[in-house]
């Protein structure tokens, strides 16, 4: 079941004109911003399928940039997002891609500054709902509807158990969890969706655990 809430159907409250091309795009941009945790110096959007064909008409461009600026779907500043980004000195680029993707509304967001870079692939599945399919080359499935944390860790035994034990200690229930790695014994990624918001001190405690490199929080 892709849709779980009545508010996926009656909602979101948003700036028009398209739930998949405007609201969904804003949400993908917003997830990228939350993962990057700061204002990027540059951002490039690679657009596929229907996104590539109609992104200007549907305001997909302003919505994606608005999301990266931290604006939610109903934020009226979305309409001026390109100008606001320019004023903030963020370099924005759009690339229309020819390649066929599994889903017609796919975008790859690459953003960064002098120190860090991030790349994610998101799809907008309709009615404003989105899924994040890939993060820095890791395949994942993230709805963006629940509070979630991303844990970059070393691919060693005990790493996953120590993180879940820490969540249990604070009585945080895991709703969905995925673990992936690019190579055995190298960098790995845990995606954990939880029912409640996770406080910052708990994230710090998780980050200080053995084998854990970086912890990032995403929530609605």
């Amino acid at each position, binding site marked *: 079941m892709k849709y779980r809430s009545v508010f996926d159907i009656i909602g979101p409250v948003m700036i028009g004109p398209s739930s998949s*091309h405007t609201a969904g795009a804003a949400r993908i941009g917003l997830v990228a911003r939350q993962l990057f945790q700061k204002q990027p110096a540059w951002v490039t959007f690679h657009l596929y399928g229907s996104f590539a*064909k109609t992104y200007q008409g549907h305001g997909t461009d302003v919505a994606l940039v608005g999301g990266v600026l931290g604006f939610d779907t109903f934020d009226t500043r979305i309409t001026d997002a390109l100008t606001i980004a320019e004023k903030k000195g963020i370099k924005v680029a759009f690339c229309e891609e020819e390649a066929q993707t599994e889903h017609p509304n796919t975008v790859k967001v690459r953003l960064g500054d002098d120190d860090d870079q991030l790349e994610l692939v998101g799809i907008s599945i309709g009615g404003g709902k989105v899924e994040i399919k890939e993060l820095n080359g890791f395949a994942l499935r993230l709805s963006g509807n629940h509070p979630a944390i991303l844990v970059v860790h070393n691919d060693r035994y005990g790493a996953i158990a120590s993180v879940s034990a820490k969540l249990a200690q604070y009585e945080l229930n895991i709703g969905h969890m995925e673990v992936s790695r690019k190579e055995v014994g190298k960098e790995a990624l845990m995606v954990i969706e939880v029912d409640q918001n996770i406080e910052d001190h708990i994230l710090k405690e998780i980050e200080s655990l053995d084998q854990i490199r970086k912890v990032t929080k995403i929530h609605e």
Partner: protein
Amino acid sequence: MFRNVKELVSIATEANITVSEVMIRQEMEQYERSREDIFTQMDRNLTVMEKAVERGIHEDVKSVSGLTGGDGKKLYEYIRSQDSLSGTLMLEAVAKAMATNEVNAAMGTICATPTAGSAGVVPGVLFTIKNKLQPTREQMIRFLFTSGAFGFIIANNASISGAAGGCQAEVGSATGMAAAAVVEMAGGTPQQSAEAMAIALKNMLGLVCDPVAGLVEVPCVKRNAFGASNAIVAADLALAGITSRIPCDEVIDAMFRIGETMPSTLRETGEGGLAATPTGRRYQELIFGSTGKKV
């Protein structure tokens, strides 16, 4: 959790509760939220819809491209100044559906039901039927939960995205959702809601998504108009005791399979249908220039 219309209707019928109540209870259980909390959120959505309707029928709304705007207001003034052929109730729903979508095209604030491109149908019907049935605020909120319950099934078993399933998945879904909700508000049974949705959706099957210049304007605004009128007619048919020979779940399944076989030129790419007509292409060039870039 109900997965299809058959399950939804049987849960409601066996417990002797409405479809809206089934949806409310599921939402409470699924997200461990209180009834009050959920009602407050839906109340906010209802307020957004009402504001969009009011804005569209009273203000001179114009989209950024200039392709749409002002038709909802024009029709609303028409029914107030003379005797119309279709009748005031029908045309008021149509006017309000168009008005909402014109606000959407103007990048105004709307509530997606189930999508932005189809956001006019449910509020257009609701804020018109309201004058006839005089519901309480709670009943109006319940209208949205009933619409949501049926939309939820379509979204999970077929699609509510024009890019995936064409306009039948957007305005078609919205029409079926509104029809089912009108039936509940008018005192019909959950089964009659299902019949109304089946009848409404059947008449939207095959509808393609062919926006001129890729904009959610032409033909979207007027498709919302006819979605609203179809929803009211389908509700009346169901309330009269008329049933759909093809069960609602099978209609949804047919809609899904039609969407799967629809060529991509007719699924929100702006490459086929009305978008590919000489006039459609002329508008595309006028708005975006021959390079395809915004001018």
